[in-house]
């Protein structure tokens, strides 16, 4: 049971504090409710580029890295479809530095033509390193576009193409900052060897006077039902053959989220899972195989990913995967198998509490979906799932007409 204290400043900035005196460290995480889904379709990759720009320096701190390193800390950030996170971890006595840094860049960020230009180049290199140079690195471009015809999840976080990043200018950057980087669009968590009362005082001291602005209501388009199967074949340029099968699933808060997550576990969590045992070990068709969910706030993506062994055709590999999906649709799983997967989830949840920074990031995430309490009760939600639920959701999810399939063929 994770004990925490949460409160909101008068400008709308939400805070969560969790004390843990078993670590010498303290972490602070700021989540801004802005991600790739908030981008203009002509300026994709903006949220992630802006994450880089947040390290440009602010009115009172020219170079954020200097105080972080001087304080014996580390900082980093990450962007996904839904939000952007910035975090620092320090020896606990130095945690006020994180308040100072995050408050200053929430209010007085200073993007210059030079920092913008350099970070555009860095992000274009990142695009090449993760998407173009990496085997199968472009798969998210293909899958996103197929699974989401209209929702802004249709482009990946890194952006649709390098040109979108290259054409960003100062006006666009500043506009993005003004619209989204506001206290009433953010959540801060502090975790570690700290006292809650001290953290409340620091919250007020550093963030209390940052003005709120009105946040426009955001409406993301809802996808229509997919009526027929979509396929794409990529030929050449990759070191092995691979197959990806994706389905659109419900949102993070949909009632079947936990059932769907358990279905992905039954298929591929652990070496006793179905895909691993049947397709990798027994039939030896795959070199690696995995099933996972994207976990996005709006309708998510359920993905099955397999790298083929030599001598196996893509058609045969696909057929074998469908047989496993059909098995879940046609036959109820045994109670034992469901229980096994619940036990694994329980372990994973316990181990996710072993890192200070992890806990800080998790607290912000749960608050961002308006369900802070879930951090302690999520296991109950998994426990409620029945074998009948698994079959019902599998039937609904794994429909041929609703699948999106990418083949990587050697030639």
């Amino acid at each position: 049971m994770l004990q925490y204290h949460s409160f909101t400043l008068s400008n709308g900035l939400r805070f969560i504090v969790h004390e843990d005196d078993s670590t010498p460290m303290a972490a602070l995480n700021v989540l801004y409710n802005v991600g790739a889904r908030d981008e203009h379709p002509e300026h994709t990759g903006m949220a992630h580029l802006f994450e880089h720009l947040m390290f440009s320096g602010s009115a009172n701190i020219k170079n954020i890295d200097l105080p972080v390193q001087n304080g014996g800390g580390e900082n980093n950030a990450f962007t996904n479809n839904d939000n952007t996170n910035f975090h620092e971890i320090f020896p606990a006595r130095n945690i006020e530095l994180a308040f100072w840094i995050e408050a200053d860049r929430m209010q007085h960020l200073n993007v210059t033509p030079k920092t913008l230009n350099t970070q555009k180049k860095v992000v274009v290199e990142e695009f090449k390193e993760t998407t173009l140079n990496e085997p199968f690195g472009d798969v998210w471009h293909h899958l996103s576009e197929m699974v989401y015809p209209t929702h802004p999840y249709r482009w990946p976080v890194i952006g649709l193409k390098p040109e979108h990043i290259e054409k960003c200018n100062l006006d666009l950057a500043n506009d993005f900052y003004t619209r989204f980087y506001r206290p009433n669009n953010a959540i801060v968590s502090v975790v570690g060897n700290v006292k809650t009362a001290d953290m409340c005082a620091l919250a007020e001291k550093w963030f209390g006077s940052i003005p709120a602005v009105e946040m426009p209501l955001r409406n993301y388009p809802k996808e229509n039902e997919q009526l027929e199967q979509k396929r794409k074949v990529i030929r050449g340029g990759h070191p092995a053959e691979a197959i990806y099968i994706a389905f659109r699933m419900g949102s993070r808060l949909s009632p079947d989220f936990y059932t769907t997550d358990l279905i992905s576990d039954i298929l591929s969590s652990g070496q006793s899972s179905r895909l691993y045992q049947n397709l990798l070990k027994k039939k030896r068709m795959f070199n690696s195989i995995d099933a996972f969910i994207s976990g996005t706030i709006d309708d998510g993506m359920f993905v099955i990913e397999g790298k083929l062994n030599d001598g196996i055709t893509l058609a045969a590999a696909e057929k074998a995967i469908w047989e496993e999906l059909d098995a879940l649709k046609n036959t109820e799983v045994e109670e034992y198998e469901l229980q096994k997967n619940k036990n694994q989830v329980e372990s994973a949840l316990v181990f996710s509490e072993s890192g200070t920074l992890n806990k800080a990031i998790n607290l912000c995430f749960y608050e961002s979906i308006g369900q802070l309490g879930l951090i302690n009760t999520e296991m109950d939600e998994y426990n409620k799932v029945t074998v009948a639920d698994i079959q019902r959701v599998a039937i609904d999810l794994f429909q041929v007409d609703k699948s999106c399939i990418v083949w990587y063929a050697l030639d």
Partner: protein
Amino acid sequence: MIHKESKPKQPEIFEVRQIPLPPLDVQYLDNGIPVYIVNTGKIDAVKLEVIFTVGRPHEHKPTVARATSALLKEGTLYKSSAEVAEHFDFYGGSLSTPFSLDYSSLIMYSLTRHIDKLLPVFAELIHYPAFSEKELSTYVENNINDLKVELSKNDVLAYRKLTESIFGKDHPYGYNSGAKAFRELTRSDLQRHFETYFHAGNAVIMLSGNVSPELLPEINRHLGNLRKGERAKGFNSVVARKKVKQIFISKKDAHQTAIALGRRLFTRTHEDYPGMFVLNTILGGYFGSRLMENIREEKGYTYNIYSSVEHLMYDGFFYISTEVGNDFVGKVIAEIEREMERLQTEEIGKAEMKMVRNYILGNLLSMADGPFNIADLYKTYIVENIDISEFNRFVQSIIDIQPARLMELARKHLRKEDMWHVVAGTKNGHPEI
């Protein structure tokens, strides 16, 4: 009227001056295996790691050490690989066999309340591994396929060529596992390696997390009867002196080119170890390093560049690695050489010294975050047979080290004339190789 906001004052910085590690308890099983215990933390879970301090230097055939280690969890004389996986998955346990060049280890994470169900099977893996033909052939096939994907990456190609050049392609630390080596592995190779080395004389156990008093007798019951043996001999790492070269691996259609530079160094027991740790951090060991500041933050030539000192049990090496836009290759190599040169000719300023010292100490402190991290820190010293008290001396050296000493080390270890250069990708902008 101009309203001038008062400038918020930077919070005071407290400097870390010591790393308070919890005491390390050591107990011995009936057969003499030491069990090092870190019993702290708040989560109801345990990590149990059994380490055999033998690796590549003890192989009778390439890749045997790694394969033996990996196959440990693929079934016993009494349980198939699938049954083992089923058992661990049911109790939410996780089992892994990470391989290092110098040792093999079998790691189990378990919730405290399930450890009694998992421990007997865990011990069976160590007592009676099956090394079945079927599992071996699956392992070989998967590794050959993985390798195919790995070898399509420029950074992997460059790194492999670099370590091979530094140590030589027949040296335990220099050879690269290829498809041929995997195919030539036989069941009896694995059995031979296992039977020669995987006994109590080479074993060390690390136990961390929420360790109940009843657990140790249980571990003794299951592993205290592992057969005894003589500790394996150490290894004398001999590397032929060769003139360093610039090596180019041509890869058409690459979107980026990988660059790797490096040289042989030494083990953690060398007197220059703490100093090189600091020097490497300054050059390319953290986000604010000179290479990152210059080549990424200032010029935008790369997404990432870093340097690293790798200490092995019987040797060591230093390397710099990056992937850059094809047009920047020549410029980046020139900048890397310039940064190494600067460390040899300009004394590091006070502010930078202070920053890097504070950064390192904070980073070391973060290793004391949680029992599993602490156990890993201790493990390094235990496995390399270095007294734990050396850690405090290492911390003190970092506090005490002076710029003059770092410059001396840079002149000794960071001369460009001593560095192998490997470039994998296209030759754009780098006509001289």
